[in-house]
């Protein structure tokens, strides 16, 4: 019983881990996006050099293991909590007006999260797996040529469509999730909470929007 009251197992503890891993994943999104911008603003060699750096520089390798663990923990806890939530109301209402008192994103976090997880799996198969275990050619600088398979993937309409839809889902996930994580940790304040909320929503739109524009750019632009 004792452990149930501590930092593991209880409903609140699980939420702390959700919030902390979620916030960590958010910081990762920024780094990831900056790298992706090389596809638009740099050359293929720049992008490959960035990818080579991310997979070889030791401190980043350590952080990447933390990242994998965070995704697993966030997803596992999220699904476990969502299952408990379903069990907490075994008989559904005949009429339930959820929109009367809560936003759409906040009511669909598990669905949005599971779709994001699906995207992460496909995404890692396409690029991460190829980078680590696939047989990629080398570019002019001798780096693995991730750029070629990336742009090739984005030239496919269905792949880009899936990518864009996933970014919309992640955008909604963060529209609610960013500020929600602060609330979960108890980091609220009459002055700062509205700012956190605004920053979170702006982040969701700008970052997920930028992610989505890159494959669209590749698809539409004749040069890449």
């Amino acid at each position, binding site marked *: 019983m004792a452990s149930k009251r501590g930092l593991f197992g209880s409903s609140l503890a699980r939420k702390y881990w959700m919030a902390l891993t979620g916030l960590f994943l958010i910081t990762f999104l920024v780094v990831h996006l900056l790298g992706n911008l090389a596809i638009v603003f740099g050359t293929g060699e720049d992008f490959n050099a960035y990818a080579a750096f991310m997979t070889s520089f030791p401190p980043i390798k350590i952080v990447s293991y933390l990242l994998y663990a965070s995704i697993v923990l966030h997803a596992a806890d999220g699904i476990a*909590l969502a299952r408990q939530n379903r*069990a*907490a*109301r075994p008989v559904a209402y*005949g009429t339930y007006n*959820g929109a009367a*008192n809560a936003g759409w994103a906040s009511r669909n976090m598990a669905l949005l999260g599971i779709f994001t997880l699906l995207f992460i799996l496909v995404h890692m198969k396409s690029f991460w797996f190829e980078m680590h275990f696939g047989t990629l050619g080398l570019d002019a600088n001798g780096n693995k040529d991730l750029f070629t398979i990336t742009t090739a993937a984005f030239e496919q309409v269905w792949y880009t469509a899936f990518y864009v839809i996933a970014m919309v889902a992640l955008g909604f996930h963060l529209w609610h999730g960013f500020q929600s994580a602060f*609330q979960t940790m*108890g980091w609220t304040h009459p002055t700062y909470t509205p700012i956190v909320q605004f920053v979170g929503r702006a982040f969701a739109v700008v970052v997920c929007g930028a992610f989505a524009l890159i494959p669209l750019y590749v698809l539409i632009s004749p040069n890449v």
Partner: protein
Amino acid sequence: MNLTLKVWRQKNAQDQGSFATYQVRDISPDMSFLEMMDVLNEQLIAQGVESVVFDHDCREGICGMCSMFINGEAHGPDRGVTTCQLHMRKFNDGDTITIEPWRAQAFPVVRDLMVDRSAFDRIIQAGGYVSVNTMGNLPDANATPIEKHDADAAFDAATCIGCGACVATCKNASAMLFVSAKVSQFALLPQGQVEAADRVRNMVHQMDLEGFGNCTNTGACEVECPKGISIENIARMNREYLKASITA
């Protein structure tokens, strides 16, 4: 007003239950929702049908008994009121109104619209109190200075009437708003400090044991709460629990 009512009927906790449809006529817009239910019950009794069982007591918005989920919302479409304070003028002539009991694993249906909310009592028993020795010379309560802001926030939290609308309305059937109000009313006052860490840990533990869901910060509870309890209390409880878990 003439209305069609779709009312949940269930004989006991084991019964499956189902909706029954009734018509009521000549309802005054000035009636409270419970008075309208009284009219329905009079009518059913006259017809030799079992009347609809629902909880109520004070009929003035202070006891929290009148649990009804009306047209998909706890206590119906009005804000900041219980069912007994909801007036029929919020509805239109000819409306169909769906009336259901609170739905939660932790609030089993006793009969019709009446549910068992003793899970809340057990959460209070787990820590929602201060231990006070009332023997001998008691110090003057006003001798302990309390900042006005804290006193007001504690009082606001203490206005929770334990109605369970927060649980009923939450898509996760989470009891966080109730528990956080009961934690906050003590956490903000000097008298509550002594047992603060044990209180929050034991109450959250009991909340989990009762089978309430987890909070996803949708904020639906504070919109539907008849007493306007803010989810700022949930953030405070999250802080209190974190503090208690780290230091214990």
